[in-house]
């Protein structure tokens, strides 16, 4: 299994990466000075690949035959005006790579801008214009754009001014190639503008202007030589707010089916049989969770090595027996790996688990710091720990229970009531508990947090008596002193979230963001009996 060919690495061939080829060229000593970079020409808008056939194109993108054919049909033959296209589909379904590969196949000049890197209208406009004007940013022009362009109307005008230039050269070019027949493939007389990640524009400040503008761009330009293709993760419905323009032709990229995934993952495998049997095991459970190629390939990589472990290095004939053996070897690893799919590339976690344990031993020996302090991954002051626990309790427990939990007389009353609790009451409690779980951590005002904090610090009186005496009491009540400071550091560390102020009470409300495990861990490091205070219905 050569790593470069794994589907993971069919990375988006964006304009950025396409032009990346200039770096290796330079590396070969062609030109050592960056400033001598030659001026861009029309050829730079076309990817200069060796021509390849439709069959090859479909082989590169095995599960996208239908979309490829449709796209080629919609883009039309050379020099044929086209309707704007709207390509959409979920993330990691091959939209961008299909489009770019289709253009490589057709060998037509195009301009590509992704809204990931063009994060506001001005940069988008200038980026498109730079490409159309064949402008290169360098030290000479202080890395500035060819034209400054803020407004959509300016953009249309500038684009109109800029396009004829490039279209002229294209026409000249195609005339030449027609007359000479020198094997240079014709570029045609059209330029295509591809705008990727359109959904990001919805978060822009002026999205209500920009999005309709982009949809209308074709009508506004009124130039049949320009084709516009929009790529988006979100479906067209959410964009069409204004019907004053011709709706672009939608092309949908559906999520891959299990068979598609198999086709994709089987591509260019060293040992297809082995990999196929591996996919038999993992594909089904995984495809229920995610069908994103990027997530799946990172998940499969370590699993496959695990799968191959019993084989050793020898080329074993893959019998049914062997398959069963491999399966039983892999099976215990699948379920835990499934849970990690969304959260992280798994090598990180494994590495972290290993390293952490190694680290712990190493540093414990080296620095001899108290073993118990190593229960925590990081240092927190005692006061911050108590505050975190109080926040956790405040979020977890209903406010009405505070009195009974922290007040001794209230606790007694509570117990009396408990003894009387009937079946009905129990049921209600269960319901309530369920509700709490569904609602997630509750929010609380600062006063409640401080009250709980004071209660639990006074209950545990963490300071041994003699020490308090020694300190002359100055730190006895000390945990309270900089509680607001601690609170703000906890907020900064993302342990407590600070909400907007409540419209009724007017004060800011907080919410604890930590999982119970972390809270328990913190409590353990303080020897604080947290579980006694958690309301479990």
């Amino acid at each position, binding site marked *: 299994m050569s790593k470069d060919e794994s589907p993971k690495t069919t*990375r988006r061939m964006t304009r950025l990466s396409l032009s990346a080829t200039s770096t290796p060229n330079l590396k070969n000593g062609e030109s050592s000075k960056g400033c001598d970079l030659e001026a861009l020409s029309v050829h730079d808008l076309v990817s200069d690949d060796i021509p390849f056939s439709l069959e090859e194109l479909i082989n590169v993108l095995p599960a996208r035959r239908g979309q490829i054919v449709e796209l080629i049909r919609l883009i039309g033959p050379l020099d044929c005006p086209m309707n704007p296209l709207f390509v959409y589909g979920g993330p990691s379904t091959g939209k961008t790579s299909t489009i770019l590969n289709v253009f490589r196949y057709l060998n037509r000049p195009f301009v590509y801008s992704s809204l990931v890197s063009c994060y506001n209208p001005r940069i988008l406009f200038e980026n498109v214009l730079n490409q159309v004007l064949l402008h290169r940013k360098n030290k000479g022009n202080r890395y500035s754009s060819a034209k400054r362009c803020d407004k959509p109307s300016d953009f249309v005008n500038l684009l109109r001014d800029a396009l004829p230039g490039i279209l002229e050269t294209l026409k000249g070019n195609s005339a030449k190639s027609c007359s000479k027949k020198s094997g240079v493939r014709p570029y045609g007389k059209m330029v295509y503008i591809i705008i990727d990640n359109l959904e990001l524009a919805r978060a822009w400040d002026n999205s209500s202007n920009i999005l309709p503008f982009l949809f209308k761009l074709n009508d506004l330009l009124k130039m049949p030589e320009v084709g516009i293709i929009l790529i988006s993760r979100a479906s067209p419905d959410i964009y069409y707010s204004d019907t004053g323009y011709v709706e672009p032709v939608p092309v949908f990229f559906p999520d891959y089916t299990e068979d598609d995934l198999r086709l994709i993952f089987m591509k260019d495998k060293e040992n297809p049989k082995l990999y196929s049997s591996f996919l038999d095991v993992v594909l089904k459970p995984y495809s229920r969770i995610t069908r994103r190629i990027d997530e799946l390939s990172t998940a499969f990589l370590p699993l496959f090595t695990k799968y191959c472990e019993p084989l050793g290095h020898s080329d074993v004939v893959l019998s049914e027996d062997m398959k069963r053996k491999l399966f039983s070897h892999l099976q215990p690893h699948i379920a835990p790996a499934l849970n990690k799919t969304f959260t*992280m590339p798994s090598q990180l976690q494994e590495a972290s688990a290993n390293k952490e344990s190694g680290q712990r031993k190493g540093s414990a020996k*080296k620095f001899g710091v108290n073993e118990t302090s190593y229960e925590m991954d990081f240092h927190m002051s005692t006061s911050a720990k108590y505050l975190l626990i109080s926040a956790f309790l405040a979020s977890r427990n209903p406010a009405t229970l505070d009195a009974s939990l922290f007040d001794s007389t209230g606790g007694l009353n509570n117990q009396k009531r408990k003894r009387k609790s009937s079946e009905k009451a129990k049921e209600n409690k269960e319901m309530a508990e369920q509700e709490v779980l569904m609602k997630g951590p509750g929010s609380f005002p600062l006063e409640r947090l401080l009250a709980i904090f004071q209660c639990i610090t006074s209950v545990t009186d963490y300071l041994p008596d003699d020490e308090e005496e020694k300190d002359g009491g100055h730190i006895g009540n000390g945990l309270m002193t900089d509680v607001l400071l601690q609170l703000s550091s906890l907020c900064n560390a993302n342990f407590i979230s600070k909400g907007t102020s409540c419209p009724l009470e007017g004060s800011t409300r907080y919410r604890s963001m930590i999982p119970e495990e972390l809270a328990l861990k913190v409590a353990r490091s303080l020897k604080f009996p947290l579980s006694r205070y958690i309301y479990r219905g």
Partner: protein
Amino acid sequence: MINESDGDDWLIMEEKLHEQPFFVLHRGRRRSELKEEDEFEAFEMIWSKIERSIKDVLKEMNGDLFDKVNGWIRNQHSHNQLRTAFVFTKNMENVDDIDTFANLASHLNSQGCHVATLFSSDISANNGVAACLKRLFNQFLMLDFDAAHISILASWYTEQGAYNKPVVVIIDNLERCYAPVLSHFIIMLSECAVKIPLILIVGVATTLDAPHRILSSTVLHSLLPAEFYLTFPAARMDAILEAVLVKPCAFFSIGHKVASFLRNYFVDHDGTLTSFVRVLKIAVIQHITMEPLGVVLRAMVDVEQTKDIGANNIDLLETRLKEALKSCPNGNDMTNSTANEWVNRLSELHRLQKSWSSVAMCLYEAGKFSGVSLLDLYSELLDPKTYNSEPNETIMPFKSSPVERSSHQDSIIWKSIRKIRDLQSTELRQLLEKWEQYSKGFTEMHNEVIELKSVVVNEGNKRPRREAQELSIHAVRATINAEKERTKVNEKAAMLLTRMLRKCVRPIECIPGNETVCFQKVDKLQSVKYFEFLLRRPCKGVLSALLGDPRRRIQLDLLEFHTFLKCNCCCKNGRMLSLSVYDTSVMYTLAQEHGDLINLHECFQSFKAAISQPPTKPKKRLKQLSPKGKTDTNGPAKADALIQARFCRAVIELQLVGLLRMPSKRRPDFVQRIAFGL
């Protein structure tokens, strides 16, 4: 000519502005000006020494990590993912890490990387991803862009010409970043990483899974992660403590109360080295200014810097000390014999301190096996109570009666010593090797340690032969014997340490003459007054106030300036404003007359009136100095500018201490009072 004098005028004004607090100070304490200068020099000298050794310790601790990161940058290559190093800083507070990452940046820079540092404050919801790029390009390209495309980075890199030079982007704290902006930024970088060798270094303050909690799966999939760990803050703390206080680096030491204050503050509240260092700094200042003989420290440091103090240059010390004593306030009254007595006392103190620190370090080494931190041990060793409570002919801790044992139970000292008895022979040998190092220059202990070590080494040589024997009853007996022997040696080691402990470890507060080198006034640390901070140059004003005085204290100080200012006018007039009153005080007193909104124009007018009521001294000087032709037109304007500048500074200082809020967009002419009443 005119231009020149113009410049002069400005200079004078600036100087005035800068020195205003000192002007006030000098009015009050003109007599002690000379003394102050001396104190200041002494402080500078002692503090610079302490600071240097702290820096060295941290450099050594971080150096290892920095090299690892550098090696990782050089070694691995990825073509399609953004290589990312997560540096776990292991401390929720990130004050210390700012320095660490700055050092990392300069280290990598010196190793031939392009480095840019983004602070988490750059990655905020307000500014969006544009601000990140702006900062990035600002540092790499030295150009300022309002709107930039990430591809500029690639163009710039190709123009640089050196294609193997990695481009490193450091983000100091993951948790404080605004996650959506950070994700966007990382995705942009990862697209750029296809073209240029881009590397991301991200500091993570809290849990190991923080990156996964904060970043989305799409972002994580575009990263090729590696992990690095900083040492635990407690370990760094111990290292600093060892370098600065246990091995007294500038002869400065602290009393038990101060030590336990520091310890509690570190454990309970803050946990950053920055604040520890800050308390220490305040302690040094306080010590030098409060203690009449504090300046003597300087002489000691001076002598030590010329040569290590030994028997040979004790004379030098003597002469320097005498000089220093002479310059002390009542030094002139001092007879020669009392001076001699002092010198003897101090050199004795110094000798004791040295042996104290070697024993303390030996104890710490033993304590390491049971996970004792130096911070705890240090404050316990300094406790006069443990020392006094211990009867002289104490029984060994392990032989003591149950009652006594229970009292020793929590004691870290006895815990450490008890641990020695349980050590394996290899561990014991390690320990003895350490002891040998620490007891250098303390012959009494050194010899015994060497003796003990030879016993252990001999035994270690015998051991393998025994192990080779078959497991028979004989062999079992042999191992039992060996075990007995081992415990014998262990016991000897424990005994030695106990003896040394009893002999040398006297808490510094119990040694006569300790006041000269030892700072004990813990209350001084807690109520460092606003004015003292403001007036003292080394502290650089309000910002370094450590514990954050309660606002009430600051307000009181601001309003009751007459208790601080010892000049005639203020003493007489009470709260009446006069010329010598500090601007911020004037401003705050004026603010009292307003409601929660203060009109800036009105306030400025009254401020102007207040500080220029009587013909002011600065104004007079100004007029005299400026050329006559120009004065008429420019003079008042400049005086106005001066007043404006003072006004602005006063307002800003009030904002810094949290008593005022700056004008908002909605009401640009008003500042808001935050604190009401006391």
